[in-house]
């Protein structure tokens, strides 16, 4: 069936919710590589940023101790993914999560108030500066949160929960729209 054209369905489509004080928008399903370093091993942040993150801003995020996500808007071919994973060797093991994690962005003046409805993590800019990442519960769903601007956060969530978390965020945003 090589004539059959395989198509890709995105988890959130091109959903967006826009208002003056809050915007929520789906981000491209590009690539997400989970990098697992050696326990007690070196900080691979700089290495990853240079070697596979392409030096892009916020391309490398801390996922957990000795673990990182390398994230980008561009979808990779299997070969490109292989090359990336090979580059990691032997410093770390990599797992392709490009389909398993879905990203969306929440931004606007009320963004901290919105997130505070879901997470017990202090998201004030003093405690959670630009570039900082963490895993936390938003409502009942665990998500990876990165501050990408003074009033902008990126949320990365398991694909199966993406729609549900989106709905929750849209509901939390209601009073600001």
């Amino acid at each position: 069936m090589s004539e059959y054209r395989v198509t890709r369905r995105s988890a959130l489509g091109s959903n967006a919710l826009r208002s003056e004080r809050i915007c929520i928008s789906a981000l491209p399903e590009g690539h997400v590589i989970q990098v697992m370093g050696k326990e007690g091993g070196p900080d691979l942040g700089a290495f990853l940023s240079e070697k596979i993150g392409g030096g892009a801003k916020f391309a490398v995020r801390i996922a957990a101790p000795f673990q990182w996500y390398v994230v980008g808007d561009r979808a990779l071919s299997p070969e490109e993914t292989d090359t990336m994973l090979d580059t990691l060797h032997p410093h770390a093991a990599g797992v392709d999560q490009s389909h398993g994690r879905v990203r969306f962005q929440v931004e606007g003046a009320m963004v901290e108030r919105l997130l505070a409805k879901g997470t017990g993590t202090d998201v004030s800019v003093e405690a959670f500066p630009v570039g900082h990442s963490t895993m936390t519960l938003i409502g009942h769903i665990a998500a990876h949160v990165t501050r990408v601007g003074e009033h902008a956060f990126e949320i990365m969530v398991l694909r199966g929960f993406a729609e549900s978390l989106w709905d929750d965020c849209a509901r939390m945003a209601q009073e600001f729209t």
Partner: protein
Amino acid sequence: MASLVPCPHCGMRPKEEFTIKGAAIARPGSHADANEWMDYVYLRNNPLGTYDEYWHHTSGCRRWLVVTRDTGTHEISASCDVTVAVKTGVAA
């Protein structure tokens, strides 16, 4: 029960992000006798005072921690990564 639990990696987090396994006690070696295993699997102290427990930061960094909690006041006096605890002998 504590409302906020300090994670050495993530900072203060609500307890909902964690899973508790119970007493942080060392697993017997493979040559341990039946009594040791019975103690490990079934026997627990129930002290009034400080208690070391395994907590998993399930919805956070997914690290297992040893959290030292006062069962009387619920105050948490220490929280460290389990690998650190094993090295320093807290849980081993």
